[in-house]
């Protein structure tokens, strides 16, 4: 295990090369490359703002005085931007090994670097969403705090990508042996999107009288729910309703670590069969 980690570290240059290649291929083909990647989440945000905010009034779950600090629109942007990255990780995870089958079957490198490169590429793209996010934060008047920037933000980013890497290791290897996984993942991504409370404040579910206690607990056990609350609470400092509960925080941290362990364990376990099937 330790020697394997060392081997991956020694091949970090290869990871860098693959990431750079993917970004180059993606952005050189169209002049507006970057603008296009931002256009989709922006368009979706607008749609969701009208449907959920204006028509369905999901903004009633927002704290009363949050309106002055960006309100429901900033809440949506701050959740949808990281989710877009995470959703793309889920989308590409099943193919992370298959697309590199030529390289994997001819070059002797630790196989982990291919899922790692996929997630690495998405990390860079996540950083590229930051200028847009900051524009919204400043324009709408978000309220960040030092504590939020130093605690919630790094924790949210680390957990998002830790969970993402675990999922990618898991899905990329299982999908080689069982191609149905790819389709299943697409459905699950949809479910997770709504189950992680991206479009409405989680407090709406937790405080609702129609939701029984056990359901609220299950809802908080979804590690992604807590992670995406962290992503948003950075810009809404001091609003108790928008900060993860102790249970949600615990399940985020434990869930992400567990996902990485399960993912890596599965990956190593299936490695021999995967190499034969590629």
């Amino acid at each position, binding site marked *: 295990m330790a020697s394997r980690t060392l081997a991956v570290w020694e091949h970090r*240059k*290869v990871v860098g*090369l693959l990431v750079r*290649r993917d970004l*180059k*291929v993606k952005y*050189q*083909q169209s002049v507006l490359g970057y603008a296009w990647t931002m256009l989709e989440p922006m368009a979706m945000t607008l749609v969701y703002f009208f449907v959920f905010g204006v028509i369905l009034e999901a903004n009633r779950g927002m704290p009363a005085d949050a309106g002055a600090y960006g309100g429901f629109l900033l809440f949506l942007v701050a959740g949808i931007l990281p989710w877009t990255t995470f959703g793309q990780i889920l989308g590409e995870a099943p193919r992370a090994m298959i697309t590199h089958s*030529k*390289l*994997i*079957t*001819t*070059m*002797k490198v630790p196989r982990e670097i291919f899922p790692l490169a996929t997630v690495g590429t998405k990390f860079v793209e996540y950083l590229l969403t930051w200028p847009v996010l900051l524009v919204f934060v400043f324009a709408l008047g978000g309220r960040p705090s030092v504590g939020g920037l130093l605690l919630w933000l790094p924790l949210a980013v680390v957990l998002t990508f830790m969970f993402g890497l675990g999922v990618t290791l898991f899905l990329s290897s*299982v999908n080689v*042996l*069982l191609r149905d996984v790819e389709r299943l993942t697409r459905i699950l991504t949809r479910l997770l999107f709504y189950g992680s409370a991206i479009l409405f404040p989680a407090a709406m579910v937790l405080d609702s009288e129609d939701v029984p206690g056990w359901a609220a607990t299950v809802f908080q056990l979804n590690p992604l729910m807590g992670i995406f609350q962290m992503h948003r609470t950075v810009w809404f400092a001091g609003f108790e309703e928008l900060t993860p509960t102790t249970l949600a925080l615990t399940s985020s941290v434990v869930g992400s670590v567990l996902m990485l362990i399960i993912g890596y364990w*599965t990956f190593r*376990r*299936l*490695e*021999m*069969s995967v*190499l*034969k*099937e590629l």
Partner: protein
Amino acid sequence: MAQTTYGAEGTGGPVIEAKGLGVSFAVNRRRKRSLREMFIHGSKRDPNAEGDEFWPLRDVSFEVARGDCVGIVGKNGTGKSTLLKLIAGVLMPDEGEVHVRGKVAPLLELRAGFNDNLTGRENVYLVGSLHGMSEKEIDERFEEIVDFAEIKPKFIDSPVRHYSSGMKVRLGFALISQLEHPIMLVDEVLAVGDKAFKRKCYEAIDRMLANQRTMVLVSHSEKDLRRFCNRGLYIKGGGLALDTDIEAALDAYNEDTKVEIAERKKREAEKKRAAEAGREDGEGPTGGQAA
């Protein structure tokens, strides 16, 4: 314990050492069962699964010394490429072990790693770095690579998807022949390009071999094998049948092929005879007349 190890170069002893090497593939639905086993039963193998296993290669042991050029001969589907993949470390053995001392240049697929959307130049840097060349090394050799590949300067900065397949293969060979790895694994890739380019390839390989480098070559071309190899491994039915010089290995292979062709002819003749006999029985006098 099945394993593949890679040591440092120059520690003496054989460069490649294989002991009791074997690899099994699942036939039919076994691979799905292996998934289920993994999650439900852990590592315990289903004893009934034995019959579903297929061993393309089993119990293969040999050593390759520094500077050797070993040719692997055998029929299609007898595990030659699998053996090469095991040495390259891109496939893990189910049985036995391989020890490789020194870095391996796997010339298993010349275009591996080329991305169609990148330019020739970008691809040379990408694939070169993937094989462990530093940017400086590539800088120094870039001219030589492009020159060798006979790619006109105006094309080197256009995307590889506009290249002809010949151009891609030539660029791949030109790049890989610049690698300085002490061990080279070659799988049927010597015969690339047109006649003139092929000659250049042969010369490049001669130069590499003269440099005390070790090569393992899988090929169906007797000419290539005789030209480069000093040793031959004859793989037959998933096992190592002969480990001698290349002439003896090729002779044994040709002998077996001759026997097989003779047998097939005999079988065909018998079938024909049986069919004719059947026709005679069924159609009576007409069949007899035709015969």
